């Protein structure tokens, strides 16, 4: 297949969009040191500036006629017709990152919004990390992209100064043109593009970032750049990709992780019209990583034929030792482990002495089951493998990682692998595992044609990388004045590391406990945190906010339990147990804490900011301890991904039926690049958190997941959605923190705490639909 037919088959994202082919350009390499200075990222190959080799002499008199596009850097290209093309390098999965990145780039470039075009980047190291998870896009790229765009703006100014033979101080870029301050002359960005691209890259000292007061787009509720595509059916998701001669594959996977195919009768499947081939993907080895799951693949001329053929297979499996895994029994084991001494991870003071001298103590055990990701778009990838290379089209969160793993699976140099990123129909962490890209590549290689791997919903629910099931034990002691004197917390859950390096042992690394367990200790003199051992029997993965989900549920529930024991208002107790306003510095307390990869200097841990969000949701809502009969309010607050979020939920419980009436959320995420997208992420986190709290459960019997589709694995629907969700964004100029994930952790405990306020019934096990109808 030629390159041109491929482009016809899959112009990125929107079919109407035309592909721009840059005209003849001369590439200038800038050395690595220079690149690092500009971009602040560690990548190897260098920063490519593309520039026309000839400079025009006619620049001064009139805009230059020129048909080519000029790359000022890998993110910004300017066409001579004034169109600015922004290359957006992170995956769009609903967080609005394409709009957010465009705001940052366009603002520092001082571009006009109506003259922007957007392209999605291929997976390539030259962009820096494209791994779209960890709520990292804005917090990592905000400063970097501002500087890159400001550099491009400065290069345009240099070009204008050169044309006008004047000092740089006499020119100013504004609204898509450079203006001469001493006369009325102006040159549009398009007119300057060619000359600007040939400028040397200015020193840091020559780059001036805009003042916040001069922002045109940053901090504004800019509309989604993709709104038309997303409401017209023209947005292309991974499952939508079609390339010429493409075949469709459906995989009958081994029902248990690590099992092996004994035999498979394929004859009936081969008779299904449209079925063209049947192959076997090899048995999985340890570590399981992002391998294609072992199974029998039916390849056909369309999706329906592939799934029909698959249904006609009769497979006999040796299920292996994970077939002994039963989640119910496993819960009992995890609970018994956390009821006994485990391995200390962090401690302060002497918790035993505090318990010995206590006026009273309180203890509780919490459990949260396995959770799937269940994005509305199941995993999807198209691969076209030939002797010379491989092209992938996929809804991947991590195109660079997908490239690496596909290269490894095919035994091919990664330079020969091209990964196109489509829109992602939800992801939540599922699509940063590349197993589906590897599957598509292996199948395409085997049949010698482009192949789309077509997961069913049943495949998605049964073959996920699950959020770990967990048990946690909490104990606290009070003195005679109802002050908390001792605090012990234990957690046990199978580790994500199990998929990478099971030999690490059945224990959690420090970073996994930093997700909500060793985050910010309560202001109690005697504290101990402990972790228990837990073996993995299914693929364990990261799901939106990761271990914060269960850690925040247990911790925020327990704080609420203590508030009631102490007969205090939940907010005043929370403020008291978080201690006076202070910056918690883990190093000073011998407390190990990784702070989401940032230093505590750049992103300090502030009790004041945490208490402020809790106060905000209480003060801005009708939060009361004296709600009407059968109803109640619950509060929870946590810091995760460097942001502070509090949730206040109001519930009613009537005739054993639970209704979430109203939810207030306050977030302090530092500077909000697009407040409306922050708001939508919080609304979404409330609904996502409701699904986990009310009905989210994956159970395993004999190694096999018991749920299969949306009739036995339930998600929140419109009728269950609160009629009122109010989001309060704390006005802040602090560095941007994460947004996609931090809304989620406080949701479940706020609901459980509200149920206690309404009924006196304490929920310690999720999901809540085991107790109440929802």
């Amino acid at each position, binding site marked *: 297949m030629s390159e041109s037919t491929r482009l016809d088959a899959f112009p990125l994202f929107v079919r109407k969009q035309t592909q721009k082919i840059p005209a003849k350009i001369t590439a200038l390499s800038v050395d690595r040191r220079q690149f690092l200075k500009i971009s602040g990222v560690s990548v190897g190959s260098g920063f490519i500036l593309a520039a026309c080799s000839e400079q025009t002499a006619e620049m001064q008199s009139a805009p230059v006629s020129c048909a080519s596009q000029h790359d000022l850097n890998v993110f910004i290209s300017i066409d001579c017709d004034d169109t600015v093309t922004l290359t957006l390098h992170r995956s*769009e*999965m*609903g*967080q*609005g990152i394409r709009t957010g990145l465009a705001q940052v780039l366009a603002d520092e470039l001082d571009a006009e919004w109506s003259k922007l075009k957007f392209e999605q980047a291929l997976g390539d190291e030259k962009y820096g990390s494209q791994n779209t998870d960890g709520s990292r896009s804005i917090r990592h790229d905000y400063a970097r992209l501002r500087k890159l765009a400001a550099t491009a703006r400065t290069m345009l100014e240099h070009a204008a100064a050169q044309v006008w033979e004047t000092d740089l101080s006499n020119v100013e870029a504004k609204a898509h043109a450079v203006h001469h301050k001493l006369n009325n002359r102006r040159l549009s960005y398009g007119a300057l593009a060619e000359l600007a691209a040939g400028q040397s890259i200015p020193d840091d000292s020559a780059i001036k970032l805009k003042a916040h007061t001069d922002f045109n787009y940053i901090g504004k509720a800019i*509309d*989604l750049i*993709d*709104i038309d*595509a*997303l*409401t*017209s*059916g*023209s*947005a*292309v*998701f991974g*499952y*939508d990709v*079609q390339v010429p001669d493409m075949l469709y594959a459906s995989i009958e996977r081994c029902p248990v992780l690590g099992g092996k195919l004994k035999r498979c009768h394929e004859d009936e499947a081969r008779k299904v*019209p449209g079925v063209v081939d049947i192959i076997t993907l090899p048995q999985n080895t340890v570590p399981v990583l992002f391998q294609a799951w072992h199974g029998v693949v039916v390849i056909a001329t*369309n*999706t*329906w034929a592939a799934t029909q053929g698959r249904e006609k297979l009769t497979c006999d499996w040796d299920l292996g030792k994970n077939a002994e895994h039963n989640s119910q029994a496993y819960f009992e084991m995890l609970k018994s482990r956390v009821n006994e001494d485990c391995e200390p991870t962090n401690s302060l003071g002497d918790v035993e002495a505090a318990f010995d001298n206590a006026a009273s103590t309180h203890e509780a055990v919490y459990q949260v089951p396995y959770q799937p990701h*269940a*994005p*509305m*778009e*199941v995993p999807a990838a198209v691969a076209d493998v030939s002797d010379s290379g491989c092209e992938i089209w996929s809804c991947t969160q991590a195109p660079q990682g997908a490239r690496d793993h596909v290269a490894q699976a095919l035994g091919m140099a990664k330079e020969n692998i091209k990964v196109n990123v489509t*829109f*992602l*129909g*939800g*992801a*939540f962490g599922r699509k940063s595992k590349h197993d589906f890209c590897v599957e598509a590549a292996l199948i395409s290689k085997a049949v010698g044609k482009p192949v789309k791997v077509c997961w*069913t*919903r049943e495949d998605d629910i049964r073959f996920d990388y699950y959020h770990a099931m967990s048990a946690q034990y909490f104990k606290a002691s009070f003195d005679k004045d109802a002050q908390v004197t001792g605090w012990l917390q234990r957690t046990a859950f199978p580790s994500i590391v199990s998929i990478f390096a099971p030999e690490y042992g059945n224990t959690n690394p420090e970073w996994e406990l930093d997700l909500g367990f060793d985050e910010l200790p309560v202001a109690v003199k005697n504290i101990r945190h402990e972790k228990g051992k837990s073996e993995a029997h299914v693929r364990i993965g990261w799901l939106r906010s990761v271990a914060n989900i269960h850690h925040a549920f247990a911790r925020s529930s327990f704080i609420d339990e203590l508030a009631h024991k102490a007969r205090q208002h939940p907010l005043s107790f929370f403020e008291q147990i978080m201690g006076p306003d202070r910056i918690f510095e883990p190093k000073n307390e011998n407390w190990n804490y990784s702070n989401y990869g940032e230093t505590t200097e750049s992103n300090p841990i502030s009790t004041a900011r945490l208490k402020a969000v809790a106060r905000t949701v209480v003060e801005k809502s009708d939060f009361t301890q004296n709600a009407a009969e059968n109803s109640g309010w619950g509060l929870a607050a946590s810091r995760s991904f460097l942001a502070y979020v509090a949730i206040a939920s109001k519930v009613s419980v009537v005739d054993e039926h639970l209704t979430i009436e109203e939810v207030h959320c306050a977030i302090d995420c530092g500077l909000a690049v697009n407040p*409306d997208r922050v708001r*939508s*992420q919080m*609304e*979404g*986190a*409330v*609904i*996502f958190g409701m*699904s986990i709290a009310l009905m989210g459960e994956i159970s395993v019997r004999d190694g096999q997941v018991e749920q299969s*589709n*949306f*009739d036995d694995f339930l*998600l*929140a*629907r*419109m*009728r269950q*959605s*609160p*009629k009122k*969700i109010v989001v309060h964004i704390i006005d802040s100029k602090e560095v941007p923190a994460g947004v996609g994930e931090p809304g989620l952790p406080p949701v479940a405990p706020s609901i459980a705490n509200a149920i206690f306020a309404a009924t006196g019934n304490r929920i310690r096990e999720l999901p809540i639909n085991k107790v109440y109808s929802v």
Partner: protein
Amino acid sequence: MVSITINGETTEINADPVTPLLWVIRDELKFTGTKFGCGKGLCGACTVHLNGQAIRSCSVPVAAATNQEITTIEGLAAGKSKNPYIGQAVRDAWAEFNVPQCGYCQPGQIMSATALLTNNSTPSDADIDNAMSGNICRCGTYPRIRSAIKKAAEVQS
């Protein structure tokens, strides 16, 4: 051969009559705006209009759709649905409230919302709950969908 009329155009398709309409629309006719979500009529991602009414195309055999008017999201966006003004009002309201997050379920949501407003120009919250609870949105855009439906209803009246 099966003859079906989609977005105003009639096409002869070489498909097994029991093939779900969804796969004919997507794989054969290349209207990929209609999404696969569950294959069992549980999530609404595949919602299209059959003579103006919302149906789950994953659970309707293509044979049942012959000689009837089928509209997909592409047809609705191009003004080819039975009630083009309602379809446009819904899309406009979706834009005004910036409803989508990932957007995958939104074609189905828009098809369901348009069918609702075709049958009921002033839906109550309960009407919206009933008409829209068959469409799952994992991102959690329900509050904005509700607001957008009310806005589209207001514009229509």
